Structures are given as structure tokens and as C-alpha cells.
């Protein structure tokens, strides 16, 4: 059986996490930001699976199932809120949704 060293897998998962983070910081569309967060969640899930395989335990995969469920919940509420944002602001651009800010005058 082909075995990949654990370091390689961890670096892969780390890169995936970075892609998500960079996507979140550079994208201004709220839907893309939600997608980037999803990538970050899944990269963390991947590390759990890698670790579970490394330690020969099922715990990592159990955790991944929990992560999937939670991520689904987050997206469900996120999309519902996006609809409300669009309803109020007529845009999904994160920079235009900014009525709340420090106003010291």
C-alpha cells in the first residue's frame, strides 16, 4: 500500500487552511467569504482524519462527522442572513455593508 508521510499530509492541510484564509481576506463577496470559511473548516477536518489514521483511532473521523454537521448548520444560517443582508442593502459586497462603525463626533 502506498503510504504518504504524515508531514506531507499536514503541509497539504495547512496549505488548504491558508487558501481559505487568503480567500477570506481578499474576497469581498459575502458568498465567497462563506465558501472560504468552509474550506478552512474542511482543512481542519482533514487534519483530524490524518491524525486519526496516524494513531489508528476512529476519533478523528468521528470528529470530522461533527465538523461536517456544524459546518452545514453555519452555512444554513449564513445563507439565511445573506438573504436578509441583500434585502436591506441590495448588495452582497462586504465593504458596502458597514453602517456600524466608530463615530466619535
Amino acid at each position, binding site marked *: 500500500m502506498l503510504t504518504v508521510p504524515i508531514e506531507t499530509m499536514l503541509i497539504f492541510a495547512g496549505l488548504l487552511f491558508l487558501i481559505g484564509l487568503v480567500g477570506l481576506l481578499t474576497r469581498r463577496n459575502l458568498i465567497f*467569504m462563506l465558501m472560504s470559511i468552509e474550506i*478552512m473548516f474542511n482543512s481542519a477536518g482533514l*487534519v*483530524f482524519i490524518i491524525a486519526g489514521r496516524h494513531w489508528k483511532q476512529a476519533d478523528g473521523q468521528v470528529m470530522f462527522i*461533527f465538523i461536517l454537521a*456544524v459546518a452545514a448548520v*453555519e452555512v444554513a444560517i449564513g445563507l439565511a442572513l445573506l438573504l436578509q*443582508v441583500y434585502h436591506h*442593502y441590495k448588495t452582497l459586497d462586504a465593504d458596502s455593508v458597514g453602517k456600524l462603525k466608530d463615530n466619535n*463626533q
Partner: protein
Amino acid sequence: MTIADLYSMMPLIVIAMAPVVMMIVISILRNYEVIYGFSVLAFIVAFASLFFTGSFLPRSIEPLLIVDVYSLFFLGIIIASALLVTILSHDYIGTLGGVKEEYFLTLFTSTLGASLLAVAGHFVIFFLGLELLSVSLYILVAFQRSKDTSVEAGIKYLLLASVSSAFLLFGMALIYTGTGTMQFAGVASLLKGSDAIAGFVSVGFSMMMVGIGFKLALVPFHMWTPDVYQGAPAPVSAYIATVSKGAVMAVLIRFFFDIRGYDSRFFFVVISALAILSMFIGNLLALKQQNIKRLLAYSSIANMGYLLVLLLTGTDKGIQAAVFYLISYFVTTIGAFGVITLLSISREETEKIDDYRGLFWTRPWAALVLTLSMLSLAGIPFTAGFIAKFYLILEGMKAGLMLLIIVMIINSVIGLYYYLRVITSMFTPGDDAGLPAISLNGNMALVLITLGILILGIYPGWLINIITRLVSL
């Protein structure tokens, strides 16, 4: 699982069952008063069940939960605060349009998440509790769908809290990779083993601190706090400032003490830096605030900075001081937000400090409670906040954390300025701004809070005795 295990989980079971019952009741009979009455009752039952549970402790339900006196204390604080928030919400939410019964339901699910954090002994429960808490809070923050700022606060909170959860998860995953266990105690016992494990745990814990820092609103992860506090309905802001932060603090203290983080030079520097930054930036940004909700947001950032000092003491006494500090901070913050809530009923939020001009002459009772809360936050003698700060400084000095304590004292002085600004505004004569009258319900809650602040401030001995006798890890 034995029957005694089930008994020791009674408070959690009550809080978990209540929303299920409420869902059924709502589907049959949609009545605001019924749901409100039921949730108050359920919180009281949950609180009472704590005393029943006390005789089965300590008990660890392998491998997920640890129910000991420490967690029971936090459960008590969480449930009592949630109850106060429920009572304060009654009039405020009642006058909103649209469906509103689900508000109490969501309040319960978030309280369940917070309670899970208080008993967590395993990463799975840590993660699930935190997510249950945050996901319910997204809904609560955006509860006034018709208001654009409420929705905006909701989406901001959702995005940032999700990112922080992702960081937390990745940190947990790294610790699991290094140690092969997700139990707090297991991680702790393996930590002494080798440098490789310590490396994984250091990186993992740092990433977890990003997630935890977001939830506690520590600088530099505090950006969301003022916006969310301002946009959310006032009782929800109170809930975020108290229950959500207290629960995360509970799990942070347990984990940090389990892995003996205060012995590690690296963690010591990280936590000190977070504490100092939070104190200074929180207080300095609050100085020029004209919006009282944002002011309280910055003040909560500073307060969490003060609390971090106790993490580094590494003693049971430090934990006891932290529990006392949290109790007094909870009472005080709910008092401040309570007055804002009760004065914002069926009108735009009364959130500008100018709105409170002359409050003492038109609504002396509300002004008195707000004054007390502000004095307590500032740490003036005869209020709960003074004793809490005194206790904190005492334990910090005993542990030799002189630098942190000096920074804290400087910041308490800076803090005085903006807390007193709110008070002077209330005593400046002004015309009646058309604020609503306070109902019996609201007055009851305010009386409880006032008594709490004064009793803890004038005669705190009995509570400190209970805490020092019972609470330890």
C-alpha cells in the same frame, strides 16, 4: 453510564429538554406569555437542580464530561445570568413585531452550549458547546430582522466567529496529531513526554488562542465587539458580554490549568501580551465613545484583559478570584445593559450617551442602577467591582505578576474617566427625552441586580468563603 452519572448531568438535561418542550408548545399554541413563563420556570428548575447534583460530585463521565464543583459554579453563574437576561428581555422582545416566541427558545439552546463549555473535558464537547453557543447567538444578534444594523451585526458576527472556530478546530487537530488524545487530562499527561509533543501543543494552543481570543474579544481579535454590541438587541448584547464570555473563560481556565500553561515561558508571554494589549486598547478606545453600547463593548474587552492576569497565577486561589470577578462582572454588566434594555422598549435603541442627559431627574431609579453599575465597573468602593478588582490584584501580587498588576492599576484609572462621563451625563439637567416607563417585571430585575452589586460590595465575605471552600480544579 450509571444512574449517578445521569443525576450529575441533571442541570444539562433540564436545559436540553426545555427547548424541545418549547418547540412542541409553540407548534400547538403560539403565546408569548406562556413561552416566557415556561422559560423562566425552566431556568429556575435548572438552577435548583444544581443543589441536587451537588451530592454526586465530583464525577467524570468518561471521556467527554467532567462535572465537578468548579463546573457546577460556572453552571450556576451561567443559568442565573441567562435567567436575568430572560426577565429583562420580556418587555423589549414583546413589543417587537413578527414572531418572537423563538427568542426564548434560542436563548435556551445558547445557554445549553455555554453549559456544555463549563463541563467540557474533551475537544468534542468543547467544539460542540462553542458552536451551539455561537450558532444560537447569530440568530439572537440578527433577531430584529427588520433593522438593517441588527442584520449587519449578525452577518459580521457569523463571519468572524466562524473563522475563529476554524482556527480553534485547526489548533485542536494539531494537538490531537501530536498527542493522540483529545481529552484535556490526556493532553496534559503526555505533555511532559517530549519536545516534539510540546511543539505540536504550542502551535496548536496558539491557534486555539486565536479562536478563544475572538470569543473573549481580546485585542487583537476584538474588531467585531463594538459593532455586534451596537447592532444586537440590548439584552442580547448583555448575554454576549456575560454568558458567552464566562463560559469560554471557564473552559480556557480548565484547559490552561490542565496543561499547566503558566509554567511554560512561551504561553506566559503570549497571555501577558494579550492581557496588556486588551487592557490598554480596550480602555483607550472607550475614552471618546458617544455610544453607550460601544462603550460597554470596549469596557468588556478591558475586563477580559484583567481576568487573563489570573490565568497566570497558576493557583487555586487565582481560580477563586477569577470566579468572584466573573460573578461581580456579570451582575454589573447585566445591570448596565438592563437599564439600556428597559429604556429602549418600543423605540429606537437609547444608545447615545446624550440620550441619558437628565435621566436622574426624570427616571431617578433607572439612573441610580446605571450609576451603580458604572461605579462598579470603575471599581469604586462599596460596589462589587471594587472587591473583585481588589481580590484580583491581591492574588496577582501574591503570584508575583507585578508588571501586569501595575498595568492593570493604570488602566483602572483610565477607565474611571469614561465611566464617570456616563454618570455626569445622567446628572446634567436635560429635557425629558420621551423614554418609556419601566414595568414591574423590569423593576424586579433591577432590584435584584442592585442588591447583588451592593451586597457583593459591602459584605462579600460569605461568597468568598463559599468559593474558597468549594472551588478548585
